[in-house]
């Protein structure tokens, strides 16, 4: 399906129009926009009756610039060669920003921007996403703009810049690496762009929703007694960037919303609660940097939200005197974002809505789904709005894997874990790239990331698959919590092992784009806890092998014959055997 037939053409009256989903151009609207069109239809046909004066369920008003406009832009500005060029991302972005927007559509953009003064999200909606085989989570840029400048021309420029940046991200290194890992031809990729109202309210210089959420109908990271098919929801205060970037957020199973995540103690909980939140910067313009995705975003401490009066719905308070956590913010004390007012006391029936949306979406699409949403509460009318931002399929293999007895530790066992993401078997890998345990220094994670990227590039060019083993949280934005690689830097890895150390004992991240891409390519992800006796990495066996490439921090070894990677997704256990 290239585009649903009932989407009207943009009519130059964005907010005044009765249509909340329109298109500019006549090409494909891309996968993300098709997902939104699906949800729009679902809301209108099956969920509309749930709406009331106190509650609105909708997709934020949007218009999609179809892929034919992207084609025109590329062709008329002679940019097609950039896709295979050696230029760096910022140089590609520069070339795109210099290009002239197709004249047929600039008037539409000017008219659109003249009629709105609230923040806009400029989001990618690529053609290959349409295949529903690869979600491309976080591969392309999304740019939010405050759109509150008094001058229409300035707002127009910011909008056009953001669209060109999203287009340029189609040719960025990470996107090209991602596409190479699929069966698609990179030359076939085209980009539609969604211009969408940001769900939220303004609080001083910040604009953000009360709650952002990501819900999945299937949970690869189980905890407690929850079943994988019961799904998982991640919630955060502010923009959803906190969740999709793998930041600290609150996770719960929709089947048991009141069960807390597996933090052993209140101290653990205090240390693992959301402490920062993202918003659109409505204040003093930042340094001009049109290529920076987060140019107009700001990250503030949780304490800054106290004055915004947005914590009441999402926070609890630690009472030191009783060493207990009290739902709400009536008392003073450290805040914990466990969303108890919503999940425990159902001040808004969020979980019911999420369950219903997941159920209906899964029923219609036929595969497990992941969805992003945002919730606002009008500070004056108290009306609640759930804005639906995105839906995409989740992929996993259903093959039933029988593991050997993990308790019978053998010298042939290279890695054993009782907490593995994914499902299936791999039998063709002879190379292992690992971070040296003895010399590991967490202050050097940036250097390690660089070494990994370089080795990955060498192996990818020779089409050599490998297993990656390292310490801390892979893909973390915080270099002190793990090795801050982006997905393209480890794109050749067929299995990934994350180990904890006493000095780097980090909880797994859930819901990040990084992990989503790993699972979409069905890359098994082993978590090995140093303090768990039944989890281990056979470092001795690794160190005995002769390295074929080595740096201060990394070793790359080639085994005599391939290893077997086995993961049982139902039990969450896995093993890598070298026989």
């Amino acid at each position, binding site marked *: 399906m290239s585009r649903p037939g009932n989407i009207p053409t943009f009519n130059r009256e964005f907010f005044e129009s009765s249509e909340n989903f329109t298109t500019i151009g006549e090409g494909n609207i891309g996968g993300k926009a098709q997902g939104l069109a699906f949800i729009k239809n679902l809301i209108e046909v099956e969920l509309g009756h749930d709406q009331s004066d106190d509650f609105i369920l909708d997709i934020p008003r949007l218009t999609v610039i179809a892929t034919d406009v992207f084609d025109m832009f590329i062709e008329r500005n002679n940019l097609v060669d950039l896709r295979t060029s050696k230029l760096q991302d910022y140089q590609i972005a520069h070339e795109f920003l210099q290009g*002239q*927007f197709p*004249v*047929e559509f600039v*008037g539409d953009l*000017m*008219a659109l921007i003249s009629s709105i003064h609230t923040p806009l999200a400029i989001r990618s909606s690529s053609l290959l996403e349409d295949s529903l085989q690869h979600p491309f989570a976080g591969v392309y840029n999304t740019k939010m703009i405050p759109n509150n400048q008094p001058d229409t*021309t300035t707002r127009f*420029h910011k909008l*056009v810049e953001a669209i060109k940046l999203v287009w340029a991200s189609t040719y960025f290194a990470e996107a090209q690496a991602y596409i190479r890992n699929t069966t698609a031809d990179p030359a076939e990729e085209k980009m539609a762009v969604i211009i969408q109202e940001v769900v939220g309210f303004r609080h001083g210089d910040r604009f953000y929703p009360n709650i952002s959420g990501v819900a999945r109908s299937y949970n690869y990271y189980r905890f407690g007694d929850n079943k994988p098919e019961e799904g998982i929801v991640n919630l955060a205060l502010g923009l959803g960037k906190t969740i999709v970037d793998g930041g600290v957020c609150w996770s719960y199973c929709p089947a048991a919303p009141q069960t807390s995540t597996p933090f052993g103690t209140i101290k653990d909980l205090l240390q693992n609660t959301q402490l920062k939140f993202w918003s659109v910067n409505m204040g003093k313009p930042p340094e001009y940097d049109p290529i920076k995705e987060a140019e107009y975003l700001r990250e503030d401490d949780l304490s800054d939200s106290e004055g915004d009066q947005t914590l009441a719905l999402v926070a609890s308070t630690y009472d030191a005197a009783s060493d207990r956590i009290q739902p709400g913010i009536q008392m003073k004390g450290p805040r914990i974002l466990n969303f108890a007012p919503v999940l425990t006391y159902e001040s808004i029936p969020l979980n019911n809505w999420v369950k219903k949306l997941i159920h209906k979406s899964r029923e219609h699409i036929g595969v497990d789904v992941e969805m992003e949403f945002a919730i606002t509460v009008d500070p004056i009318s108290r009306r609640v709005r759930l804005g639906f931002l995105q839906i995409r399929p989740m992929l996993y293999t259903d093959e039933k894997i029988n593991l050997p007895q993990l308790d019978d530790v053998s010298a042939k066992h290279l890695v054993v874990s009782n907490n593995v993401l994914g499902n299936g078997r791999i039998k063709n890998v002879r190379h292992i790239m690992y971070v040296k345990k003895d010399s590991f220094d967490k202050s050097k994670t940036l250097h390690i990331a660089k070494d990994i990227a370089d080795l990955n590039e060498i192996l990818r060019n020779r089409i050599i698959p490998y297993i990656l083993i390292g310490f801390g949280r892979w893909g973390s934005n915080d270099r002190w919590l793990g090795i801050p690689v982006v997905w393209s830097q480890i794109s050749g890895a067929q299995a990934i092992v994350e180990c904890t150390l006493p000095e780097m004992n980090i909880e797994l991240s859930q819901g990040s784009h990084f992990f989503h891409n790993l699972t979409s390519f069905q890359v098994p992800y082993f978590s090995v806890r140093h303090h768990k006796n039944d989890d281990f990495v056979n470092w001795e066996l690794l160190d005995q092998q002769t390295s074929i490439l080595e740096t201060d921090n990394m070793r790359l070894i080639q085994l005599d014959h391939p290893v077997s990677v086995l993961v049982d997704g139902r039990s969450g256990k896995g093993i890598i055997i070298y026989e």
Partner: protein
Amino acid sequence: MQTKTYNAFEMAQEQFDRIAEMMQLNEGTIQLLRNPMREYHFSIPVRMDDGHYKVFRGFRVQHNDARGPGKGGIRFHPLETIDTVRALAMWMTWKTAVVDIPLGGSKGGVICDPHNLSERELESISRGWVRQISQNVGPLSDIPAPDVMTNPQIMLWMLDEFETLNRGKYPGFITGKPVGMGGSLGRTEATGYGVIFTIREALREMSINIKDTTASVQGFGNVAQFAIQLYNQLGGNVTAVACWNQKDQKAYTYRKTDGIDLKELSGITDRFGGIDKDKAHELGYEVLDGNQWIKENVDILIPAALENQITEDTVKLISKKVKIIAEGANGPTTPAADEIIKAQNIYLIPDLLANSGGVTCSYFEQVQSNLNYYWDKDEVLAKLDTKMTAAYRSISNLAHRKDIKMRDAAFITAVTRVAQACQERGWI
């Protein structure tokens, strides 16, 4: 056969009188608006390349500047007459008012044939024109621009002369300058694109998909070429273009029923928009009579050459298939032909509106030049589109509300605005 010699100014006055009567304007307003407020006639002596001296006649007519400084092009044409310049100045007044930009209407010209002039002789005429009129034009009073057979280079010579005489830098004195020398990006495309913006809106009103339409174009100069470009980009198909052949001193129509190739034809076109007849033939184009363009079995006719092309005689040649005539040129349709077009229910987008993209972009250039701060092309064209679309919709709404034709609606809008400005200034 035409019954009398065509006089553009008489035609412009005739148009105005009819509108004035419809609007029941008072006598003072009529007298003020049916004639230019000022006009200048002067001689430009030039030493020719062969050493002899030749005196060229130059004009500047300022029809009305109640809404702002005068604005209008300078034409170099061997058949130029003061009446043509008067008519064009009056139309400029209406045109700037139709698109609601704060300018008045002027026009200028020199009787000469640039085809037969060397570059040095052209420069001498250009500088001579400025020397004769520099006291009466300028960025705050009357701003010239390119027109028939004048170009950015000529504008730059004129600017240079003006700045020399006035001892300063006045980039806002003239528009249509080369980009990088005070010109605006998008100026070259503006008139042609503007024609298509209005056609696009008209087709939208008529619920016709532009991709299902064909067009025939008279002219292959700047306006026509960019109109064809954007029309093609939107999915339309131009099957015929007509233009003047300097060598044969007659016009030809070049036709390809499956669609002309703009790039191919521009590659064999001289700087005045004349297509090389022999090369066109080699490329597989039918080379037909100059009037054939109007007979074509197409949906849209775009006269984008000179005035007085759709007459009482030629209008009869228009195919029944034609739904829209968009006047890319100034005054291409005579009042008599206009009546026949109305009777045939062909939707006519009048010149005042259809080709106002040029003056709108000239206004943008003037604003940029006065600020000495220049916009990027996306911004220029976006503003052009929104301005033209807004003007189209306002004229079209008036036409629908009053059940009148587009030309009348455009005239009424323009004359109302100008008359009101004159009244508010206390002139009448």
